């Protein structure tokens, strides 16, 4: 890249080919064109937006508890985001996840209330339904070669239909005399209640893991001009400062405010992240999505990998339904239908939040959370909640367009 500096130009044609640019703009330019900055530009833009919110709305927005409540309530959406993420990496679309979640919400409540199954069996059955649904999708797409949109649209219809057949089209909520839902699962002081917090020691462990992850992530993005040892020190410094700032701003409330649902989400996220970045399966999954033919010829069993991706997606979707049941304690028709769009939005945001074009697990959770916070801030600021979907759509389009524009001058 050639630095053209107008300030040294003047009228004379300078034969000297190397004008010395002022050091500061050059440093800034270098930073702006670094891969690390490009990957984080959307993330930074979101933070800037929240800073604006903080000034505008003050404490009515900047409460740790309130924002954690958003995460808690949206855990099913974020789980669905992870569900579609896996299939998206494999180059497939799974449109059936929201319907799967609706089905398992009904089953998680109904198999206990109506059929009085032991509750652990209910959970296992719901996850099993997720496996079967995933296998069905995989069978249609891989064996019968049905287009992935059509196949998952159809199975989505089937899952949704089955849930309404099971519930006879009405709401399902436990009443007096029904076999009771266990108190640890739903209701006050349960898995699903925001008021029920994890012990602070667990929260501290989570924070320590997050800090460690952030450190590894920063360290692996070493710019060329730093030596490995020096950069490790700088990375540690950056992460330490960021952690300190977060604790001061109020993330300290995280320790007291983390509910079991949030913990579950983070544990699932960690597991999925390990699977798709640290294990053979993840490499095969990425290869299958990037170029199926090349992957097959390189010895990857692409068909099997794709079916497995659908199964993982199905299980995560089933889990989202179970969490939904825990949060709400009842099931109503179409309970998760509106979640499909934000789930895909979260997965797509992951390609621009702290990433340049890749689908990532942390990006999905962060992106999905940011999406909620943006609309929540507007609602706190007085916008009718019915605008929610509009805001979601706008944020997705703007965020992706924004980072595309920023990436363009790379080449």
């Amino acid at each position: 890249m050639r630095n053209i500096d107008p300030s040294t130009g003047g009228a004379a044609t300078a034969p000297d080919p190397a004008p010395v640019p002022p050091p500061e703009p050059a440093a800034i330019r270098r930073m702006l064109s670094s891969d690390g900055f490009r990957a984080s530009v959307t993330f930074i833009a979101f933070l800037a937006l929240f800073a604006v919110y903080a000034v505008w709305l003050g404490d009515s927005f900047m409460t740790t508890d309130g924002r954690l409540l958003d995460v808690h309530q949206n855990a099913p959406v974020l789980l669905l985001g992870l569900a579609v993420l896996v299939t998206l990496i494999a180059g497939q679309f799974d449109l059936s996840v929201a319907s799967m979640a609706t089905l398992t919400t009904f089953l998680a409540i109904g198999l206990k209330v109506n059929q009085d199954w032991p509750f652990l069996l209910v959970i296992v059955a719901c996850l099993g339904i997720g496996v079967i649904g995933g296998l069905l999708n995989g069978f249609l797409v891989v064996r019968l070669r049905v287009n992935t949109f059509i196949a998952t649209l159809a199975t989505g219809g089937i899952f949704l239909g089955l849930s309404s057949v099971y519930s006879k089209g009405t709401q399902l909520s436990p009443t007096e005399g029904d076999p009771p839902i266990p108190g640890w699962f739903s209701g006050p002081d349960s898995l699903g209640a925001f008021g029920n917090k994890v012990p602070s020691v667990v929260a501290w462990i989570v924070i320590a893991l997050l800090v460690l992850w952030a450190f590894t992530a920063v360290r692996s993005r070493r710019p060329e001009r730093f030596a490995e040892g020096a950069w490790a020190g700088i990375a540690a410094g950056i992460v330490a400062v960021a952690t300190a700032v977060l604790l001061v701003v109020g993330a300290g409330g995280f320790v007291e405010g983390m509910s079991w649902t949030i913990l579950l989400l983070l544990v699932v996220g960690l597991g999925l992240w390990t699977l798709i970045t640290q294990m053979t399966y993840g490499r095969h999954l990425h290869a299958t999505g990037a170029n199926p033919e090349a992957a097959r010829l390189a010895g990857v069993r692409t068909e099997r990998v794709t079916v497995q991706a659908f199964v993982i997606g199905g299980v995560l979707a089933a889990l989202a339904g179970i969490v939904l049941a825990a949060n709400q304690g009842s099931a109503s028709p179409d309970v998760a239908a509106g979640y499909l769009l934000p789930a895909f939005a979260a997965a797509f945001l992951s390609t621009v939040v702290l990433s340049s074009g890749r689908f990532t697990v942390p990006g999905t959770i962060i992106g999905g959370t940011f999406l909620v916070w943006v609309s929540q801030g507007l609602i706190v600021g007085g916008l009718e909640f019915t605008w929610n979907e509009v805001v979601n759509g706008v944020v997705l389009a703007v965020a992706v367009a924004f980072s595309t524009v920023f990436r363009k001058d790379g080449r």
Partner: protein
Amino acid sequence: MAHDIDIRGLTKSFGSHAVLHGIDLRIGEGEFVGLMGPNGAGKSTLIKILAGVHGNYGGELRFGGERVPSLAGRDDVGFIHQDLGLVDDMSIVDNLRLGEAPLRRLGPLLHHGREARAAADALALVGLERSVDTPVGALSPGEKTLVAVARLLARGARVLVVDEATSTLSPADAQQLIDSLKRTTAEGATVIMVSHKLSEILRVCDRIVVVLDGRLVEDRPAEGLDHDGLVELLVAHEVDGHPGGEREPARPGEELVRLEGAVAGRAGPVDLVVHAGEVVGLTGLAGSGLHDVAFLAHGSAVPDRGRVVRPPSATTALVPPYRERQGGFDEHSIARNLTISALPRWRAPWRLLRTGVERRDARDVVGRLDVRPGDPERAYGDLSGGNKQKVVFGRALLRDPRLYVLCEPTRGVDVQTRREIYRLIDELRSGGAGVLVVTSDFEDLVAVADRMSVVVDGRVGPFLVADDMSAKDLEAFI
């Protein structure tokens, strides 16, 4: 004149890596220029700057005396890559009309007759005798390329930039294409052709330009240059890595794969055995089912009939024939492209990957095969064709199988790399591996094969022992 290309002091860097160090090149109307040079020398970058893919370069570009950012988006300049931009499901005439103003009969109704006549005229320009209603998918790769050329000429292209378009074609198709290009220069058009095939360049080019390490090191008329002279030009600037010496005779060991009447795709029924410690060569024309035989031997194709027998210990690795489509994962790093076939090597307890060791091993291979640029974290898609080939080769090496199935191992690679690859195949053989080389380039077989045969209509002919074979003999044999 109106279609002169004038390149002055062209420089280009990616990050801190300089790829072009000031190229000066003037090309006049009616010239047929052959652009040559080793893989990663900067040929592709130069072409991509002309095509407007890379901006942000230093120096200037003039076309017909006017300063322009690139030659893209003009009707009088056309680019031919390996990816032709044709739609297989549509007919020739519909492909030719794509992006053109419609020829109308009345209002929105199209004038199909006039469109067909215009298309037939365009085909006549390139000498392709085919009905304009033929679906493009039914054409041979060479004919497809001709359709792409016809489309450009019909739009008024006076300058054609042809980037390795012949490397995936059979010799006959390639000949038809370059003859047709030659005809256009006779009518005053300019052709710039990038190719590694010396014989092609010598046959049609008026002028030969050699790029090396981002510099223009040779620019001379083709007249008076023969094959050996051109090789000398190309390697004069490099350390000579020619292995030389006699090859040891093959000592075939146990059977690694046996095909018994196997049928798949266009191949078969095929009987074929490859032993450890020998190099078996197959050649044939495009469409002969040649590569299907390779897929059968590798195990990526399952036989519809017959059997493929492989001892349980016989692991295989494949270098696929169509690098651009089947080779690798463009957005992934070079390292990931290298290690995808051999991941169990780096498996730690709990099935986690030892990513540190993996990265180091990838770096080793990048160094050993001299992949450029040599940063294993760069995207595979940024590499030039020959360097992609090296990565795909490296992937097979990392897998460390008993049987290597190498399709078109030297397609699109420069003279130097070609020698390296031959030496590598020799090494594999003396290391006790079995190698099946499947190629449409006879030169490969003469250089490395212990015994060889020709695939015609999906069947493998009788085997010939390499001793006194030459490329000419084999060519005659087909």
